[in-house]
């Protein structure tokens, strides 16, 4: 009895040490994002800040290197891209698993496997295509890209989900004179709300965290997404104003933190969704 209790205590000590190692970088980010530059340069980074400068640093970071614009851009890309891809994917999933169109499985494979290749396979041709059709460095271009990249996974999940909906529901609605679009909208969509929410969070997160396509498909700070702006914030300021960079990092991370703490249940659900994919 005594030994198991001692063992339990040792485990907790180890866990606490590990947790401390995981929390310290976050704490140092917060505390240094709060320092004035004179405070930061005259005292070691692990000291506690002497004044409260967090808000003014966040303000400076927001207006520097287009980070604020990037933040708003990414909100637009994330919301529009995730929502549009869910609509497009639900139409496709409905045709494949409910209407059972001929060749549906092949079409599904074509949609699903479009994005299993490494992302580096897409960058050069997309850059050239965007340049030749005038989509390069435009918000529309990025919205179209982010929508497209989210479609395959949404189709995979919704296709699976729609097969679990009993067909009688649709037949009853059709007998009453509903069109297929109507059935999708008023029978299938309401049933898949929580799956769609999980998908929305996942795709929004992916789009928000994207750096590669932001720097490949756009160049001006009025179009670039937030992570591209954050990267150029590091370049502009070099090592000279780390508190501003860290405040910028906090700005870029804030929506993800809000989503994580606000929708924790959905994140775990979403994870099991991804895991079931395998």
């Amino acid at each position, binding site marked *: 009895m005594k030994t198991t209790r001692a063992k339990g205590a040792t485990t907790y000590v180890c866990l606490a040490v590990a947790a401390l190692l995981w929390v310290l970088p976050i704490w140092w980010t917060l505390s240094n994002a709060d320092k004035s530059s004179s405070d930061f340069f005259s005292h070691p980074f692990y000291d506690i800040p002497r004044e409260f400068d967090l808000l003014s640093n966040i303000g400076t970071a927001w207006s520097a290197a287009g980070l604020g614009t990037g933040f708003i851009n990414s909100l637009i890309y994330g919301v529009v891209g995730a929502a549009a891809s869910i609509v497009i994917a639900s139409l496709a999933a409905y045709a494949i698993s409910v209407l059972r169109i001929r060749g549906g499985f092949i079409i599904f494979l074509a949609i699903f496997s479009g994005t299993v290749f490494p992302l580096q396979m897409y960058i050069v041709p997309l850059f050239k295509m965007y340049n030749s059709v005038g989509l390069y460095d435009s918000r529309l271009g990025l919205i179209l890209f982010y929508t497209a990249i989210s479609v395959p996974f949404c*189709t995979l999940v919704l296709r699976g989900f729609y097969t679990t909906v009993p067909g009688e529901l649709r037949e009853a609605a059709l007998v009453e004179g509903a069109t297929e679009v109507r059935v999708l909208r008023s029978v299938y969509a309401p049933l898949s709300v929580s799956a769609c929410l999980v998908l929305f969070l996942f795709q929004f997160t992916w789009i928000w965290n994207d750096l590669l396509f932001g720097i490949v498909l756009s160049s001006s700070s009025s179009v670039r997404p937030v992570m591209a702006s954050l990267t150029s914030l590091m370049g502009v300021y070099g090592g000279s104003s780390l508190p501003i960079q860290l405040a910028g990092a906090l700005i870029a991370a804030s929506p993800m933190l809000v989503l994580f703490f606000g929708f924790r249940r959905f994140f775990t659900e979403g994870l099991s969704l991804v895991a079931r994919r395998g």
Partner: protein
Amino acid sequence: MRGASMRRRRRRLRGYLFVAPAVVFVVGMFWYSIVMTVWISFTNSNGLTPAKFVGLANYNAMLNDPELLTNIYNTLIWAIAMIVLPVGLGLLAAVTVHKRRGKSIFQTVFYLPYAIGFVTTGVIWSFLLGTSGFSVLFQALGLHSLAQVQWLNDVPLNTYSMIVASTWQTMGVDMLLFFVGLDTIDRQVLEAASLDGAVGWKMFRHMTWPLLSAMTRVIIAISIVNALQAFNLIWVMTAGGPYGSSSTFAVWTYQQSFQYYKMGYGAAIAVVLTIFVLVASVGYLRRSLREVRV
């Protein structure tokens, strides 16, 4: 009769209209790009002058490029380290924390770095590994030789440092995936085993580990594929430098294509990377396709 067949045809047509937007997006952007990248890899495309077909010249040039070995080496190191460290630690954390009091606190703490994203992680760790970060701490602790180390400039330490940052970031998500796996294990099976006297390591070795193996395979497959494409963190922290010493295939493709405008060469690197990824994920893809079909 004719009316019925017309209606059927119209209904079929509608089905294809429903899939059309998804197909147009995916085929127009991604399948087009895949075909084009393979084609561009056989040309001397530079984004300025018209491209000419050059056969295997880019692939030959790659074989003779001294950077090839560095990139293969770094890409492999990333792949191996990302399997061993975040997955191993994630498993350890999951098994230790699961069903223990305070689980939700540990879960939040370990997952937090994943929530803040790759680029943000890169900014934070660039600061910690830079001159005003850990070096200052080591100096204060009297560890002068450690304080001299330039974590992001010395080779091969720069790659290892970024792997540490990446482990810090991704361990939590692997832990959560293992939680999902642990939740699906029948509790009665584990209880029966513990009644039979299986505890600690024995319990893990003979019960938990085998029952988790399906989930472990999925996590390892995802980790390999992600690690082979490692870009964001490296791009933010070292941009593959100094002098390409911490570059990986993903960084190399981007650099050749968009910094030196050797798009033909960049495309060839992307094709080789794709072959690596496809070889690494063949078993995983075959399995998931089988499940999708069912």
